[in-house]
């Protein structure tokens, strides 16, 4: 497109080089571009797979149960992550509002990650155990019944729609392939696991006057939400106790911070 070749003679040395070697030979240009765009990605991503440079790991974390996987898939289906983060930042206000800050190993079995990029609603990393099961049941049916002025949509279909065991089994099999340790991957095993854990939630809901069955979406959703952050908090407390007495002061501090989120909704 350049109509005259003035800068062949006039331009700087790199200008002449660029014009002759790169612009004249498209293959060279394409290869040079590929190299330029590859370096940064390789330099940042490859070390993620190394034990010393990558995210911190912990053997104590357990994978999501089949019912929790079903709930997590619903969380993804409904796009909950478009409004709720799962990442408590190491800042004083966040510790007060949400509890312990997020550790890398807590996400060991987060596939895909659900850190989120926006907080239209509060962070959910430590929501597990914060409210009773019946609270979540009512909140999904009508958020404004419990949080007047909330802008969250209602998810009342979750109370009636059902989770397919075959579908969850497919998920467990794919996650097993990815390396998540499960005791089984047959449909019978998945059903038994879901019935067991779902049954506990159904009993909780029943004692609060809500009738449902173990295979409804709401039960899977509650199972997932009630698990969030609980295991991480327990492991952190064990670590703090194990390194006592010198760390005793800091352990009570972090336990206090973990409790402090209570008034928030």
């Amino acid at each position, binding site marked *: *497109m*350049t109509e*005259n070749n003035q*800068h062949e003679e006039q*331009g700087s040395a790199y*200008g002449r080089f660029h014009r002759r070697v*790169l612009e004249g030979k*498209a293959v060279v240009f*394409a290869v040079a*571009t*590929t190299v*330029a*765009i590859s*370096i940064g*990605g390789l330099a940042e*991503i490859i070390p993620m797979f190394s034990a010393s*440079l990558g*995210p*911190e790991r912990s053997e104590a974390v357990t994978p999501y149960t089949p019912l929790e996987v079903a709930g997590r*898939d619903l969380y993804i*289906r*409904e*796009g909950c*992550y*478009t*409004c709720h983060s799962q*990442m408590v*930042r190491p*800042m004083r*206000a966040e510790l*007060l*509002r949400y509890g312990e800050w*997020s550790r*890398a190993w*807590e*996400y*060991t079995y*987060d*596939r*895909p990650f659900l850190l*989120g*990029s926006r*907080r*239209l609603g*509060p962070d959910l990393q430590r929501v597990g155990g914060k409210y009773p099961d019946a609270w979540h049941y009512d909140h999904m049916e009508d*958020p404004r019944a419990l949080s007047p002025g909330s*802008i969250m*949509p209602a*998810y009342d*279909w979750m109370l009636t729609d059902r989770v397919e065991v075959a*579908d969850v089994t*497919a*998920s467990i*099999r*794919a996650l097993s*392939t*990815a390396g998540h340790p499960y005791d089984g991957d047959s449909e019978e095993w998945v059903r038994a696991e879901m019935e067991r854990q779902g049954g506990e939630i159904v009993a909780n809901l029943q004692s609060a006057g809500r009738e449902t069955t173990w295979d409804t979406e709401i039960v899977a959703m509650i199972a997932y939400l009630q698990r969030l952050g609980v295991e991480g908090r327990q492991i952190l407390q064990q670590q703090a106790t194990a390194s006592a007495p010198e760390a005793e002061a800091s352990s009570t501090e972090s336990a206090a911070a973990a409790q402090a989120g209570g*008034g*928030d*909704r």
Partner: protein
Amino acid sequence: MESSSSSVSTATPVGVTPDYDDRIVKMFFTATVIWGIVGMLVGVIIALQLTFWQANLGPWLSFGRLRPLHTNAVIFAFAGNVCFTGIYHSMQRLLKTRMFNDTLSRIHFWGWQLIIVSAAVTLPLGMTQSKEYAELIWPIDVAITLVWVVFGINFFGTVARRKVQHLYVAIWFYMSFVITIAVLHIFNSLAIPATLFRSYPIYTGLTDALVQWWYGHNAVGFFLTTPFLGLMYYYLPRAAERPVYSYRLSIIHFWALVFLYIWAGPHHLLFSALPDWAQTLGMVFSIMLIAPSWGGMLNGLLTLRGAWDRVRTDPVLKMMVVAVSFYGMSTFEGPMMSIRAVNGLAHYTNWVIGHVHSGALGWVGMMSFGMLYWLVPRLYKRELWKPQWAEAHFWLATIGIVLYTVAMWAAGLMEGLQWRAINDAGQLANPIFLDITARLQPFLLLRVVGGSMYLVGAIMMGINFWKTVRGSDEAAQTPASVTA
């Protein structure tokens, strides 16, 4: 300087009719206008849902499912088709040859539209991989890869049979778009399928997060920046009838931009548990990105030297000037937001949404509109139906962007400050999260107003183009100014 040598000229030897495929350009242009209006409309709907929760209609049209539809529609349907319109039009002229293969062009066009339609069906059904701008389920990801390969073959085939020796700067930027999007898409989409509609990524936890934001940030860099810089390097000099300001600057800022951009992804994960070295690299490279970004802005703006009188009267140039200015502003704002201390305040707030939209509405949108208002009369050899509507579109869009970004800045600062406020007793000053959300409502409503103005402008453009293309024969008289 050596600027005169970088002039863009499409002068064709007298008596020779170039055998360019303009039909494919018209197809991509038509798709651009339709998907642009759809994508922006969905944007206004989800903005409304944040002020009136009642606007969440059942499972299929609730915010969580529509928000990815909005982002995918404006990025891949609107901006994608704009890029293809401009690339198919300009590269034939820059390389003085017809596209490599017309069938590949058609497969690219229809394949891409089919991908968009399947996205518009699957996302409201809740079929998603949840990674931002990479939500589409794995079978669609496979289709994207195939269509992109078709585009790549067609692109490089055209480059190979070019009738000019040297590659003009616009072609460099197009090339980086073709190559980098392929790399990003493939590596971020690697997943283990569970069913036809669901899969799990091969990466886990923060590694998955890093790969995603390597992809996500460079989707901005190589889908919404480099191809649009390529369009700027072709269409702005054409519209201004001035040569590109500096050839040397274009070399430096091209290589610096494509090399530095790739590193900046981790700034999306500051204060997360991602290893500190990666967070720091992300921050440092983001700040360095100011230099090549502003190199592009300056090369664009300085190309207008001697043509500023026409900026006052020509809607095409007005839109391009606003576009390049917003490019400069958002590429200053972005690095600032990547500084840890600033990010601590801005992250997770509406400020980020404001930042994205000053880039998307200001840079991408205005550059697209400017290009289309210049291109369509020439493509169809008809005068624009109502030039004064283009003028109105410019003002609606510009005022709309300002209202939108100001509202989001205010909302973002407010929520960022109120989330972190601690009282004298050492407790949260605003312990109830919902109280802060309620205070955002006036700003969220103002955002709906700004976004709606932008949408109305785009609809006016759509009508204007429809009437231009389908106009009476009277309007078909080709004015001298259009034959260039």
